């Protein structure tokens, strides 16, 4: 008895020593069975442990048994001696276990070497943790003290197991805490949302020993456009399709229910059963909540059937999720701030560019130069807007059309490349560029002539150009071929499929349109581009308006000066005219006496030789009278006294008057009067005089006869009635061409030089004009053009 007690004590003291050692439970149990074998003086011992759901007992430590069966040899509850003891929770001694019906033989386990055994349950209160066996090679009828020893040892082992479990729990908790801490550290390490989501997924999956983890952010407005999904897989590969589907389904459910979800067995879940083949076995979904707002869902997947997720895991993931939510929100906030900052930076840059452009525009009031500056700014990279090509059109109010004024941009890829690299290599600002004057280099570019050919009627606005001006709003044409707003001819002219138009608006009035495209680098035109372009167009419109007003003022000023000079001139002429009238009157009376009496004398001296002297006197008197008449006509103010006149009739009348003289001069007359010529409001007498002067001129040009052609017709644009007088004379020299309408210019020895100037004045008084040129076939061609109704 004493020996037993001593033996017992030595075993127990050894066990408590082992219990305090730092090794793990399996190690401890192995050493304990060795101690038991040694202490009992038997040949074998083993320990089975019951698994958590209390379904099986499994061999975990053994002496005398085949070591390979450790960890593998397992009995269901109630099966075999181990199963029976675990279920019945009572010790058992069998001298001949092989004859016992409860015995279940497992080949190659090594049990067949032993004759007898004693088994006792390892109890923790009422719960069985496992079973200990003591095995004997010789037949052994165990005494009650043997049983007591084994039972006591079992109790001692129970303590060891509990202590080990406690330590394991504490270690696990510690590990979780350190994981959470690590995650917390990781979450504050980055503000990049995508990186952060990946980090959370990775840490969560690793901590829970999960095969995969996904994070989905809900598509709230402020999260839009961000990377709202991240995943991590243990293998490092892509997330399997089926897991992605499961995750989506779980996320939807968590989002809907707004609470964590733990699914231990996917196959048992009615909603997810369909996914149970091939995918995860168990999973957890936890909402990411920030200030009562669900911002996303984190999901972990487990494919190991024997290790489903536990409540503990759920707890852990919930903890992770709460700090992850804060981090995600922070990252989101940071991103929004970044976006705002970027936007502010862009705005500042845009304003700086606009300021530059404004300065550049204020450098000139010359419209042509201003338009070039505007278009250069639109097409210049760096300090400009950076479009490839730009065309400017202005509204012509008189014709109610939109008219292309100028185009700036390269005409080919090669030129584009050259121009851009040149700009880049020089780093010139727009202002420098303007000051160097190289703006005017490509004045005659193909694009410029293309631009100048653009003409769009605003009477019935149809295409995008007219619409831009009439609606006063920009258009961003992305696919010109399919856009009903883009007329075919415009598309074929521009040769691009994407372009944008913005109106030029000054004081609420559309004055034109700017068209831009990216023909060469094909960069899409964004809404941001349109916004900036609109601001730019606004500024441009004001500058153009200023330039136009300035030009108008200049023109007006010039007109005023001219008018003033004209007034002075006409006052001088009036004074001169009055004086001339007096002089001619005083001369005319004596001339009448001289001429009149000479004529009477001539009648009396009919056959005399002196007649030729008389004739000379008469001819000179007649000439003097002619000079007086022409001078008076020229000085006289020409105010037409108009009446409806048939032009052809008037011409026939004049030709009839001169019929004899024309015949005498051997001049043939050919007429061609168009029936389309309408009746005109004319001063008959004045026009007659005007025509006679031209007629006389023509007759004098054809000294030895010829053909006089008189022709009338109507010109369409501008609508005018033309009266053409062609002769077959020598034509008019270039010098004479410029002078025939100047008073007192004459090539004739006896001309007054006032005939054509008088004609010119009369036609001008009728708001018409005279054109003069030499025909290709020789001879001069006078054309009177009068406005037609």
């Amino acid at each position, binding site marked *: 008895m004493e020996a037993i007690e001593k033996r017992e004590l030595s075993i127990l003291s050894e066990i408590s020593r082992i219990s305090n050692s730092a090794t793990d439970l399996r190690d401890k149990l192995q050493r304990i069975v060795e101690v038991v074998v040694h202490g009992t003086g038997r040949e074998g011992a083993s320990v089975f442990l019951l698994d958590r759901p209390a379904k099986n007992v499994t061999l975990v430590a053994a002496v005398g048994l085949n070591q390979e069966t450790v960890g593998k040899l397992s009995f269901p509850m109630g099966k075999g001696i181990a199963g029976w003891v675990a279920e019945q929770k009572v010790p058992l001694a069998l001298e001949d276990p092989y004859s016992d019906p409860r015995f279940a033989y497992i080949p190659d386990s090594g049990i067949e070497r032993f004759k007898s055994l004693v088994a006792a349950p390892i109890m923790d209160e009422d719960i069985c943790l496992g079973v200990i066996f003591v095995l004997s090679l010789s037949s052994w009828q165990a005494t009650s003290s043997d049983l007591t020893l084994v039972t006591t040892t079992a109790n001692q082992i129970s303590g060891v197991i509990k202590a080990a479990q406690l330590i394991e729990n504490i270690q696990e908790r510690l590990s979780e805490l350190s994981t959470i801490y690590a995650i917390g550290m990781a979450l504050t390490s980055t503000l990049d949302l995508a990186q952060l989501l990946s980090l959370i997924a990775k840490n969560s999956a690793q901590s829970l020993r999960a095969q995969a983890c996904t994070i989905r952010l809900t598509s709230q407005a402020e999260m839009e456009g961000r990377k709202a999904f991240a995943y991590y897989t243990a293998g490092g590969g892509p997330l399997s399709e089926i897991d992605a589907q499961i995750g989506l389904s779980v996320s939807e459910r968590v989002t809907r229910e707004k609470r964590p979800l733990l699914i231990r067995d996917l196959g048992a879940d009615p909603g997810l059963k369909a996914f149970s083949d091939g995918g995860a076995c168990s999973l957890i979904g936890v909402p990411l909540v920030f200030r009562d707002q669900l911002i996303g869902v984190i999901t972990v997947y487990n494919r190991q059937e024997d290790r489903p997720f536990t409540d503990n895991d759920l707890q852990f993931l919930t903890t992770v999720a709460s700090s992850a939510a804060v981090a995600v929100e922070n990252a989101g906030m940071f991103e929004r701030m970044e976006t705002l900052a970027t936007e502010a930076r862009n705005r500042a840059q845009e304003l700086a560019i606009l300021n530059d452009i404004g300065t550049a525009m204020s450098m000139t009031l010359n419209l042509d130069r201003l338009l070039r500056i505007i278009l250069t700014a639109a097409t210049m990279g760096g300090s400009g807007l950076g479009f490839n090509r730009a065309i400017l059109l202005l509204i012509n109010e008189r014709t109610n059309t939109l008219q292309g004024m100028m185009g700036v941009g390269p005409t080919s890829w090669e030129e584009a490349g050259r121009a851009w690299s040149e700009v880049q290599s020089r780093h010139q600002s727009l202002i420098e560029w303007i000051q160097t004057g190289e703006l005017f280099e490509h004045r005659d570019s193909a694009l410029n002539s293309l631009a100048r050919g653009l003409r769009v009627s605003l009477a019935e606005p149809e295409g995008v150009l007219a619409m831009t001006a009439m609606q006063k709003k920009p258009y961003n044409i992305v696919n010109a071929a399919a856009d009903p707003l883009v007329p075919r001819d415009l598309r074929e002219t521009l040769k691009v499929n994407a372009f944008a138009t913005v109106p030029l608006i000054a004081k609420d009035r559309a004055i034109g349109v700017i068209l831009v495209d990216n023909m060469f680098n094909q960069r899409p035109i964004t809404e941001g581009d349109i916004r900036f372009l609109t601001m730019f167009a606004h500024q441009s419109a004001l500058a153009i308006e200023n330039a136009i007003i300035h030009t108008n003022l200049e023109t007006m000023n010039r007109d005023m000066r001219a008018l003033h000079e004209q007034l002075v001139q006409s006052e001088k002429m009036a004074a001169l005219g009055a004086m001339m*009238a007096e002089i*001619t*009157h005083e001369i*005319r*009376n*004596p*001339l*009448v*006496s*001289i*001429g*009149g*009496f*000479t*004529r*009477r004398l001539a009648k009396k001296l009919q056959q005399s030789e002196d007649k030729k002297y008389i004739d000379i006197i*008469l001819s000179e*008197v*007649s000439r003097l*009278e002619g000079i007086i*008449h022409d001078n*008076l006509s020229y000085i*006289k103010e020409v105010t037409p*006294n108009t009446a409806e006149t048939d032009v052809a009739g008037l011409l026939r009348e004049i030709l009839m008057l001169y019929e004899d003289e024309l015949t005498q001069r051997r001049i043939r007359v050919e007429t061609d009067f168009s029936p389309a010529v309408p009746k005109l409001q004319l001063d008959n007498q004045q026009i007659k005089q005007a025509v006679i002067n031209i007629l006389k001129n023509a007759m004098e040009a054809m000294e030895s006869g010829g053909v006089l052609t008189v022709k009338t017709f109507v010109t369409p644009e501008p609508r005018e009635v033309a009266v053409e007088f062609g002769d077959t004379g020598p034509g008019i020299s270039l010098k004479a061409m410029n002078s025939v309408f100047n008073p007192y210019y004459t090539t004739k020895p006896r001309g007054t030089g006032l005939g054509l100037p008088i004609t010119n004045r009369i036609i001008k008084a009728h708001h018409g004009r005279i054109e003069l040129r030499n025909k290709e076939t020789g001879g001069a061609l006078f054309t009177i053009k009068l406005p037609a109704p």
Partner: protein
Amino acid sequence: MKNILVVDDEENIRELYREEFEEMGYGVTTVADGAQALTKMDATKFDLVTLDMRMPDMDGIETLRKMKEKDKTLPVIICTAYEEYKHDFGSWCSDAYVVKSADTALLRDTVKKILG
């Protein structure tokens, strides 16, 4: 025989017209100003007057008006060196407007047309 009154301040012109008109077979009376013309009209019945415009004292316009007051039906030919008033007076109250010329053909034609 029909009588023509020639009113002109230039003596040579008066003489020229007298010779021309007498040659045509008319009786001719000449005066140098408007006042004399009006006085002559009281004494003699004329069939036609040729009237100069620019004359001292009473000009042609005033003389014409007064003549017409006396005898609305008396034909008057304005015969002047001014051609620029043709529009203004041509059809106003005279029966013809002839610009003085060394060639008296137009004047003679006009007189013949009126007196037949």
